[in-house]
């Protein structure tokens, strides 16, 4: 059985997953930086080395993410919307809604029982409610993103944050600090503000079945808490939420490769 690769070139991080059948052989992750093609190549080589494979041994490579069109070694490009749906469904088959918060955008995806996309909503062109938003706020509060997540997960009270524009929210946060507001309460307020924005997007889709939270921001315990509280339902959190798009891409590479399709037709 041949192995397949999924490459997810996101705005902040690039991820690669190598898959054989239903087994993840390896995965790799690094910052995308200013050279998405170079980052993808390094990540790809790293994942191949970990899997003990050569590029020529792969049955196919699907690229996804904002840099998907620039990956020379990919045989096909699929949007992160389809890939996250497929990846989340693979990990949690009862998933009918995916919330994906990445570096520069946020999406809510409705899917069917086969993992196919029924509908989706994306944030508009600004960075509000995304990973980048949280990074800027962490910088404004002079704390690490992990520290911020941890404070948000345990805060008892939230300071309301009115602006969701990254630039205006930053000055609002600085003003709140100057006024003497508690840092954990500001942080919790920021997380709840993002969650409210995501909730607004989610309400435009039929929220049925299980909800799976993917993307780098799903690692943030404060964000998970805020979404759980506001949605009023449990969330599936993958062990490595950041690689779900790459996993979906690898699954699509394997399910659409000619040999696999031929095998399906012959019911092998």
């Amino acid at each position, binding site marked *: 059985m041949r192995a397949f690769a999924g490459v997810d070139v996101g705005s902040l991080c690039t991820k690669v997953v190598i898959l054989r059948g239903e087994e993840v052989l390896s995965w790799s992750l690094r910052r995308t930086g200013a050279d998405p093609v170079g980052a993808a190549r390094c990540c790809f080589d790293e994942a191949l080395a970990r899997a003990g494979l050569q590029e020529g041994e792969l049955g196919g490579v699907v690229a996804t993410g904002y840099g998907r069109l620039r990956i020379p070694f990919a045989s096909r490009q*699929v949007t992160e*919307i389809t890939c996250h749906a497929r990846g989340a469904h693979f990990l949690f088959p009862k998933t009918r809604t995916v919330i994906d918060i990445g570096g520069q955008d946020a999406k809510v995806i409705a899917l069917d029982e086969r993992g*196919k*996309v029924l509908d989706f909503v994306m944030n508009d062109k600004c960075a509000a409610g995304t990973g980048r938003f949280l990074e800027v706020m962490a910088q404004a509060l002079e704390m690490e993103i992990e520290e911020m997540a941890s404070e948000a997960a345990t805060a008892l009270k939230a300071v309301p944050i009115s602006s969701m524009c990254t630039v205006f929210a930053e000055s609002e946060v600085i003003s709140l600090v100057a006024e003497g507001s508690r840092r954990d309460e500001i942080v919790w307020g920021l997380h709840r503000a993002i969650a409210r924005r995501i909730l607004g997007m989610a309400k435009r889709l039929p929220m049925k079945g299980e909800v799976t939270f993917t993307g780098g921001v799903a690692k943030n315990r404060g964000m998970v808490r805020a979404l759980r509280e506001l949605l009023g339902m449990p969330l599936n959190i993958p062990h490595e939420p950041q690689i779900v798009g790459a996993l979906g891409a690898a699954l699509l590479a394997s399910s659409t490769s000619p040999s696999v399709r031929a095998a399906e037709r012959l019911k092998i």
Partner: protein
Amino acid sequence: MLRAGGLYRVLRPLLALYLLKERNRPYRIWVSFLCRIFEGAYGRKRPVVWVNAFFPVEAIYALGAVPFIPEIYASLVAYFDLSRGPIALGGTKLSTDLCSFFRCVMGLAEEGVLPEPDLVISSSHLCDGANKFFSELARFYAVDHLFLDPPYGGGDKAKVYLLEQLRYVMEEASRRLGLPLRDEALSLVLHRTRHIWHFMQEVNRLRQGRPSPFAGSEGLSYVAGMAFYSPGSEEGVEFFRALRDHIAVRVRGGKGYLPRERFRVLWLHHIRPYYPNSIFSFLDARGIAVAFEEPNYLWWPEPRPEAPWESLTDKLLCNPWAGPLERRLQAVREMALSYGVQGAIHFSHWGCRQSTGGAVQLGEALKEMGLLYLLLPGDGADPGNYSPGQTLTRLQAFAEMLESR
């Protein structure tokens, strides 16, 4: 130089010669029509009346004045990728939250590029900001502004009210411009509009053919332009007759506008991005035909030259994009069924309240019909509001949904 009427007089035959290689005759007529309009507007041999795109332009033709629709001029400026400067300049006079077509017009006015009006007339239906914006333009050029304010709902009382308004506005225009307003002239104009109406009906019926015989991107550009600008003119009759013939030939030959049509979709909203962008080339490459588009939907009843004022009033009042949303929903449902589409793309133009206001409800109605729906935010005139990556991701995800069905 753009302001010299003579330029368009010279340009018209030159462009006609240049466009001889263009096999699409309707397109050649559109270019010639614009040259004539600009020649008249800049030449100033007859009074120039600025009207907004939704005002019944027939009334201006009947008056013998030159109609100038600034929104269409702005879309041409965007088409030539020249809108950034005027939009930035217009933004110094108007809120940047306002429609970019308006900001572009204001910038062009500031730059002194546009033909000066003798009178400004606008109508408030559909475009809520139109009357205020056109009032501002009238103030800028120090000319009078007349406006129509069609009532929200229909019915007999609304008809009487609007008919009186329309007559009053046109009588005032006649008085202020010193041009006679004769019912016979309006009847003649409506007679032409009736021809246009019949040709449009045939065009729309032919476009139901499979594969789609005519590109929606063109339907959204010069065809929509003529649908706004030409009713009542001789060129309008010529244009829509030529368009009917052009499409009929394609239908008879079983020719689609795409090499291989895989899916059919409806384009919702009156406009598309006019500046260079990759939306339609992407759709073409994926075999997604834009089978029809909202601005070319024939919503108005057959014009009656024997009752021209009533006829124009009916045209204004039964516009499905004005009044309650249910009217637009019904029109869109009808289009979806007539053109056998699998999905619809709603282009949500930044700053446009009248179309984006009901976009979510429209999507719900179409999804209930089992259709896929894409809400595509963007801007018709301002390339600064166009994000290629975000737009492509949405379009590609929509294509993937169509393909996975």
